[in-house]
């Protein structure tokens, strides 16, 4: 059973967020290790800024950076990483989502993983072998911190900690993996295991956007995903990549939550209703039948 720390953070300011993250670490008895190079992977799925609940709040990352510098060392080298995707380019996302300003204010580097040195790596999931380029910056980091959001996703039901690592794949045409998305998510997590997962649930996007004020931390991405799924009203056992990740030894879907009761967040989370589920199903069917090409 994996430990997940859960804390409510009611206000959106660096000090409050930092306090909440620190408390979440304490709840799971996590001590930050000695480190010279740290990589932080926020979620930047598209040009939706933090206020939509779709992407990691730069203020959340600023608070995390403050905490890492206080706890580890003031001169620790921190890089915020993301890669180009089918519909998103890092050079615009960094600027548009407020990360360029954050990098300047906090003196950290912004790294486009699609434009840095990477090494080939092969990884097996079930009976299928995948080959990816692993960015050297991730391989060489002393500490890799994943800072996901919690969202519904058409093809994988949920997008939380495991899915966020999909964005560490430097190959930009990510839509090409959509037919094998579940296996690819697990494969990427196997080839680039992150040490720590700190979920930014301050503002979330479900059926609508809501200030949920949730901060979660765990060393187990599968457990974070399982807790998030419960809050979102999704049965973790129905999430294929979660089941697969557990089978591949990436973590456990059985969890113990310490701190704020997840029922409190579950009741408030803006869950999808029947119509939203029908839209998702309809869209998936349209994609399978090739009818999505008719949509402009």
């Amino acid at each position, binding site marked *: 059973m994996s430990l997940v720390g859960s804390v409510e953070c009611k206000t959106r300011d660096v000090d409050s967020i930092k306090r909440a993250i620190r408390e979440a670490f304490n709840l799971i008895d996590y001590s930050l290790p000695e480190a010279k190079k740290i990589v932080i992977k926020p979620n930047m*799925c*598209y*040009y*939706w*800024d933090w206020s*939509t609940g779709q992407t990691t709040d730069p203020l959340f990352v600023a608070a995390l950076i403050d905490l890492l510098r206080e706890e580890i060392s003031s001169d620790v080298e921190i890089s915020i990483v993301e890669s180009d995707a*089918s*519909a*998103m*380019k890092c050079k*615009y996302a960094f*600027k*548009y989502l*407020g990360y*360029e*300003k954050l990098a300047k204010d906090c003196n950290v580097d912004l790294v486009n993983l699609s434009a840095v040195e990477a090494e080939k790596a092969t990884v097996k999931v079930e009976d299928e072998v995948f080959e990816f380029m692993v960015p050297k910056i991730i391989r060489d980091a002393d500490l890799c911190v994943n800072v996901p959001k919690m969202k519904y996703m*058409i093809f994988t039901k949920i997008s939380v900690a495991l899915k966020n690592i999909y964005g560490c794949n430097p190959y930009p045409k990510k839509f090409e993996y959509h037919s094998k998305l579940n296996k690819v998510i697990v494969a990427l997590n196997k080839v680039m295991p992150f040490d720590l997962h700190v979920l930014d649930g301050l503002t979330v996007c479900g059926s609508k956007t809501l200030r949920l004020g949730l901060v979660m931390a765990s060393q187990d991405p599968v457990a974070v995903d399982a807790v998030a799924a419960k809050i979102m009203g999704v049965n973790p056992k129905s999430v294929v990549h979660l089941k697969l990740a557990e089978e591949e030894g990436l973590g456990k879907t059985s969890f113990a939550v310490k701190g704020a009761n997840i029922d409190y967040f579950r009741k408030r989370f803006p869950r999808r209703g029947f*119509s939203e589920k*029908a*839209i998702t199903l*309809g*869209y998936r069917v*349209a994609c399978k039948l090739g*009818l999505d*090409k*008719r*949509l*402009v």
Partner: protein
Amino acid sequence: MGVIGLGFIGKVHLRNCLSLKSVKVVAAADTSKKTLNYARDFGVKQLFTDYHELLKLKDLDAVIIALPTHLHADCAINAMEEGKHVFLEKPLARNVKEGREIVSAARKNDVKFMVGYPLRFVPEFVDLKSQMESGMLGDIQMAHAVDVAAGPFFHRAESTTPRPVPEWWLNKELTGGGALMDLGCHMINLLRWYLGEAADVKARLGYRFNFDFEDYATCIIDFECGASAVVNVGWFSQNAAVGVELFGTMSYARAYFSPSSKVVTAIKLILGKTPKFFIPYLKEISHFVDYIQNDNGENPLSGENALRDLEVIIKAYKNKVK
């Protein structure tokens, strides 16, 4: 008819043209071969990656140009010199000089020229004009126009699926401006339709997303008729609001464009029907075709008209306040 440029709006125009009985789409052009397949799937036979080749076709009377703004002048003038009637997407051009060159080329080559302003065909805005003209609002003293949307960061009309943002959108040199140029031209065109010519304009430009062009703007326009208007435009919202409010000495009235839900839009697209959102686009093309075929001389969306919108926008940029 030929369609030049098959981005989001080019595809909409192509589908709309195909649904009009009085139009035969004979060709399409786009720099992307992959994108041209979209037109091929709809039965368009002659496909070009260079629009100059399309313009040489003899059996082509008119073209719809839906290209990035920096290509408007070159493409429109070339088309006019080849004797084609031209429907050009808004904004007319990225600056007044290019706008004047296009308008002058249309006159010189004696071709029909129309600039796309779909909001002029939205029933709610047409009705607002009727209410105003009936006198029931009295003398209009103030107006408010708003067009707040996601700008280039929009998704497919029917879903939350993000679409890649064409890079030219994010280059001020190629667009001539940001949200004020992109959305402001719609609102200024509507307000000029309601209130007449603008006498003066000031703008406050906003930069929420840290680009070197504005992603939102507020303009204050003084009209020659004595009325004043505030125009708010922005690229920051996932849920579009497009509307005009008129305040007169007797009463006030408002009109908002409200397209149907994403689900209805998706179903209609899949069934090959025109969703409500695209009906104004269909009407404007229909108007263009009627203007060419019937030669009745009426063209409320002339190049000269669009040039005046552009002049107001450029003046607003010059008169920006901090």
